[in-house]
């Protein structure tokens, strides 16, 4: 590079600083499109399948069993999780230090939340009618997702992440109150669609 030691006017230097900050942020924290959009697509597909199974007035809109809907959701979520894991491994190779420990603890919090949710649902699920069992699983898993996004926002002072978590919690609450069919519909449209939009919007927004 010929220009290595070049000094320039303040305006130019300020621009260089800003560009470098934005480029580094994007490079370190990954593409928000890859963080949010795969989950959005997974929920859009999975919960649409659940919605078609439940219907809004106790009649299925399509011949999809609860197990088939669950399979769609789980497969799509596996893809989203693989993409997220790829991003985390990549970041661990770039940086080390306190934030590695912070990220690990946050990761374990997710694991603990999900395990606890599974334990509760396995114990309580059989006591409920099938639709309510499905609602229990969906409602508690989104509880973990919403709360941990809010906590993540606090951890990294990331306002979009915090509000996305609050949005998940709010939609989950309304859906659970309205019942399995509505919960599936609201989750598919407002959370699935919402995460797709959030990923695209956060990417287009200047870092």
């Amino acid at each position: 590079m010929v220009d290595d030691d070049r000094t320039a006017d303040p305006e130019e230097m300020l621009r260089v600083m800003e560009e470098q900050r934005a480029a580094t942020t994007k490079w370190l924290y990954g593409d928000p499109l890859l963080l949010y959009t795969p989950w959005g697509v997974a929920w859009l597909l999975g919960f649409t399948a659940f919605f078609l199974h439940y219907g809004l007035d106790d009649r299925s809109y399509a011949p999809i069993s609860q197990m088939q809907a669950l399979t769609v959701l789980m497969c799509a979520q596996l893809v989203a999780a693989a993409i997220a894991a790829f991003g985390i491994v990549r970041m661990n190779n770039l940086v080390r230090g306190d934030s590695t420990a912070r990220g690990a603890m946050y990761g374990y919090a997710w694991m603990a939340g999900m395990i606890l949710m599974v334990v509760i649902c396995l114990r309580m699920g059989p006591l409920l009618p099938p639709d309510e069992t499905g609602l229990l699983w969906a409602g508690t898993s989104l509880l973990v997702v919403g709360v941990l996004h809010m906590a993540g926002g606090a951890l990294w002072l990331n306002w979009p992440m915090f509000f996305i978590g609050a949005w998940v919690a709010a939609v989950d609450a309304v859906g659970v109150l309205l019942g399995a069919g509505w919960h599936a519909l609201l989750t598919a449209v407002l959370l699935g669609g919402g995460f797709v939009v959030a990923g695209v919007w956060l990417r287009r927004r200047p870092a």
Partner: protein
Amino acid sequence: MSTDKTPPDLDPVIHAQARLRVVATLNVLAEGDEMAFGSMKELLGMTAGNLSVHLTKLEEAGYVRITKTHKGRTPVTFVALTRRGRLAFEEYTKQIRALLDNAGLDNAGGVT
């Protein structure tokens, strides 16, 4: 060519485009974090030799801390901004903004 134009108060260690980019990059990291040399090289689009020269200058000024370690058998170097470096960058940013604000005022006054 324009080195002579450097206003006397601006930190000469930071007021060079390549080193400014290095410091601006490290400043994004949270305190207590360090970045692998190889990653920096890739992100900044510099050669290893080039980046080393700039890092040495920054280390001499006490602005960066360089840690050499091993990952398995491969040697890895990590770079972090020191507290002093962070403060110097903050100060530099403030000065640049002040210079621009003043320039803006002068221009506005000159036109009318």
